[in-house]
């Protein structure tokens, strides 16, 4: 478990800001990221746009940004 812990720590240290950033101006609220994220990192905001709410769970698996049809997601870590 030590290894995992290390990762966790590192993660927390890095994750001062959101692990992925959504550029709302380009986003069209299609929910692909919301529904495809294996870690359920996103929720929907009042206007119906995705918003990162569980950033700590993000594994940087890249699924969301590989599938965003609008290039509206960038990773702040990669």
């Amino acid at each position, binding site marked *: 478990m030590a290894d995992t812990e290390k990762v966790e720590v590192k993660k927390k240290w890095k994750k001062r800001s959101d692990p992925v950033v959504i550029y709302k*101006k380009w986003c069209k609220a*299609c929910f692909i990221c919301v529904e*495809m994220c294996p870690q359920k990192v996103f929720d929907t905001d009042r206007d119906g746009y995705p918003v990162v709410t569980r950033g700590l769970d993000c594994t940087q*698996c*890249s699924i969301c940004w*590989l*599938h965003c*049809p609008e*290039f509206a997601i*960038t990773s702040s870590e990669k």
Partner: protein
Amino acid sequence: MVEQVSNVTHKYLRPKKTFPNVWCPGCGIGIAMGALIRAIDSLNFNKDDVSVVSGIGCTARIPVYLDFNTLHTTHGRAIAFATGVKLANPKLHVIVISGDGDLLAIGGNHFIHAARRNIDITCILVNNYIYGMTGGQYSPTTPFAKNASTAPYGMIEQSFDPSDLAKSSGATYVARGTVYHASQLSRLISQAISHNGFSFVEVISNCHTQYGRLNREGSAVKMIQWQKEYAVPASAAARMTREELEGKFVTGKLHEVFRPEYVSEYQKIIDKFNEEEEENRQLQES
């Protein structure tokens, strides 16, 4: 294989063009475009050496966003224009990107002939089983019995298997991917581009706005997730029976052979004359 992608794509978007793009929210075309960009990036090409050519349709709007030598031609004719581009400047990596109507309906002839000629062009088909841009008419890939705005009582024509057609027309590299399998897709596209000869990649994509609506297939997300269920990797397919494969589609590299490539063969003729000329010159000098 997690790639450094998120910023990579932006490097290739046209600075002068504003986003968001023209596509409906959730349209797979954007995902395919991302895969194409990453494939090109992985090959370390100089942007000036890449040309992306399209016809008309939703898919065909891709080039305008890309910071390459881009050519948005007439409906169905992308490959024929691309043939001229490639022959006139063989150092360009020429990529054609097309919809199923554009490439296979009105453009079918250029497709089979470029494949036959085995000219070094990479052709990517974004197959959403419908004419997206004009509002949901049936295409040569619309499956039997499905609905379209011009097939209100269900499609009664058979459909093409585009990859099979590519192969028997002469394409020397054939692969199929989906927008769901986005990383595999970039790999297939970059293989296709690297292949010397006519290469073809079929990309299964969604048009929920038209095809999805008319056939009650649900949202973009649902349609994309369905791709996972119907896709069978080529390796697995090899071990499956015909019945088991019914209704599924095989993904991955489907075919690769090597045959004389058109541009290189042409160059040989030119070289022969150059050599002769050179010999003559030397003869005269001596």
